[in-house]
């Protein structure tokens, strides 16, 4: 008797009898649901109600539940609906679904104005929490570095070198390539616009000052925040998810000392090196374009460069690098350790690690600009 399921009404005097046939399984669930909904609307106040299931060919949880749902909705007042003709194969399944309490699912409330205001309020008060978290981490990292200075052997040298390879050595090709291209573009744009005033040669001044003071370190810091900050957050976050950080703590290790400090140290060492390489690549790219596109030959370029820039420009740029590295590292580690149990949370914290990292790098750059202007460098 397999085939499409049916639910037919059989007239039986004062009694309401429904006869279910066919396959009552998940595959036919939409049809079944409609049939059951129609049958639920059957009017009248019969003296007895029967649901005959003796001809049901196949029954699964979906079918059994829909029969149970029908039985419950037909049961009104004193008249209880009965299920008749149940084969022994399926009786335990029907008994099982009979135990189910139909608790309506509470839907989460829709977006309301108060809800939105609440979210804004929470976000604003969250800013203070973010800053406190960063300061907290800074303190913890400084305390851990203090301990390492007293006991230099507690420094995780292998781990530091490993991270140095990851964030510095492996980053060199992409950083050099991108800064080289940026140098080319700055020089090309400079020459293109300065040529109208016959001031081609000043492109060298612009390139030198811009690259050494600002672009070199800022661009590299932003790239490192995207490349290594996100990696730190993801690493620490997945360790947090799998309770590896708790395991370290219970063994008496300080996660800051074992996980955060080597990463921070690697980043603080790596960023000045990368910023230097980036600045050189940008100058080289700029020089190449000045020669090929602007007709400034290399000797003239170098001569002009020597006049245009002083060691101060270089110092101003490179001094910022370790500070920016520390900011990126702290943001990344705070976010990594804040990851909760879900994959979604890992994604959110990795995103906010990069966004906050880049934001703070630019804020720091602004602070440095004010500082250097006021000391006249």
């Amino acid at each position, binding site marked *: 008797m397999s085939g499409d399921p049916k639910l037919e009404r059989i007239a039986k005097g004062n009694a309401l009898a429904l006869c279910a046939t066919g396959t009552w*399984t*998940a*595959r036919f*669930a*939409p049809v079944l*649901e409609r049939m059951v909904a129609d049958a639920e609307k059957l009017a009248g106040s019969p003296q007895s109600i029967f649901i005959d299931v003796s001809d049901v060919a*196949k029954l*699964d*949880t*979906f079918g059994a*539940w*829909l029969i149970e*749902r029908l039985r419950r909705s037909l049961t009104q007042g004193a008249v209880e609906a009965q299920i008749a003709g149940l084969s022994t*194969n399926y009786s*335990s*399944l029907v008994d*099982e*679904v009979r*135990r*189910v*309490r*139909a*608790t*309506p*699912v*509470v839907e989460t409330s829709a977006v309301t104005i108060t809800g939105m205001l609440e979210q804004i309020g929470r976000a604003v008060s969250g800013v203070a929490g973010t800053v406190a978290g960063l300061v907290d981490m800074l303190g913890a990292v400084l305390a851990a570095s203090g301990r390492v200075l007293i006991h230099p052997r507690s420094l995780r040298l292998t781990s530091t070198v490993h991270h140095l390879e990851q964030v510095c050595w492996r980053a060199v090709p992409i950083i050099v390539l991108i800064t080289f291209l940026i140098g080319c573009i700055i020089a090309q744009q400079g020459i293109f616009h300065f040529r109208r005033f016959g001031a081609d040669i000043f492109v060298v001044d612009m390139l030198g000052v811009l690259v050494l003071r600002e672009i070199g370190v800022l661009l590299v810091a932003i790239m490192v925040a995207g490349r290594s900050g996100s990696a730190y957050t993801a690493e620490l976050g997945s360790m947090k998810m799998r309770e590896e950080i708790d395991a370290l703590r219970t063994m008496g290790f300080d996660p800051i000392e074992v996980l955060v400090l080597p990463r921070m140290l690697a980043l603080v060492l790596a960023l000045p090196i990368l910023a230097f390489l980036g600045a050189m690549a940008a100058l080289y790219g700029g020089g190449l374009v000045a020669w090929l596109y602007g007709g400034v030959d290399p000797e003239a370029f170098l001569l002009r460069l020597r006049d245009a820039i002083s060691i101060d420009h270089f110092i101003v740029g490179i001094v910022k690098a370790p500070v920016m590295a520390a900011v990126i590292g702290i943001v990344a580690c705070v976010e990594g350790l804040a990851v*909760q*149990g*879900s*994959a*979604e*949370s890992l994604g959110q914290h990795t995103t906010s690690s990069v966004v906050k990292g880049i934001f703070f790098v630019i804020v720091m750059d602004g602070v440095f600009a004010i500082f250097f202007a006021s000391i006249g460098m």
Partner: protein
Amino acid sequence: MMAGDIQNPIIRVRDITVQFGATRVLDGLNLDVKRGEILGFVGPSGAGKSVLTRTIIGLVPKVAGSIEVFGVDLDASGGAQRRGVERRWGVLFQQGALFSSLTVRQNIQFPMREYLRVSQRLMDEITMAKLTMVGLKPEVAERFPSELSGGMIKRVALARALSLDPDLVFLDEPTSGLDPIGAGDFDELVRTLQRTLGLTVFMVTHDLDSLYTACDRIAVLGNGKIIAAGSMADMQASQHPWLRQYFHGKRARAVMG
């Protein structure tokens, strides 16, 4: 169900060979799983029990051999036919493998949403039915996997594996990490579900209690082959050294009382 189905095994594995690099994990393995039985699958750690499970469900590529599930050759089938087979089995992974960004309710409804066109109301009700069946309270439905205990994760994972009312379920070490009472409950649960839903269960396990209480038949993996298959009595009568150690060791005697 057609009469022929009862004769034919639900899973028929023939001459399966699986290799990782130079290591041959499974070497010409043959195995039949009969319809409606609970097959306990044992073997030493690292023998390849999970590898066989993952090979059958298609997560590990094999070098040679054929696998038929529900009479369908999985290599020869593609697209819709293959999905039809996958829709009829459920898998309980060792760690549960619940989707961590979805609630318990969404986890259980995920396969339904993909494969069935049913109303949200019916899905919610079926979810509650499944939770009741695996012995969880309805309140659990809105929790996230990270807020569940180890035993609850296994139960929710089982509820998700059962969400489409499959004919066949693969359980990979379902009782590992559970306390003995929880493990006993779980065995009982598998038994009950097998009876009520007419399931066929393929269970990889290390738990002697599960083998005694839940399984109809036991298959033993060793050296990349099935070294023995049969009832508990057959296993205890076997003269194979590993089997003797396994079924007559200190722990086995404790279980048998």
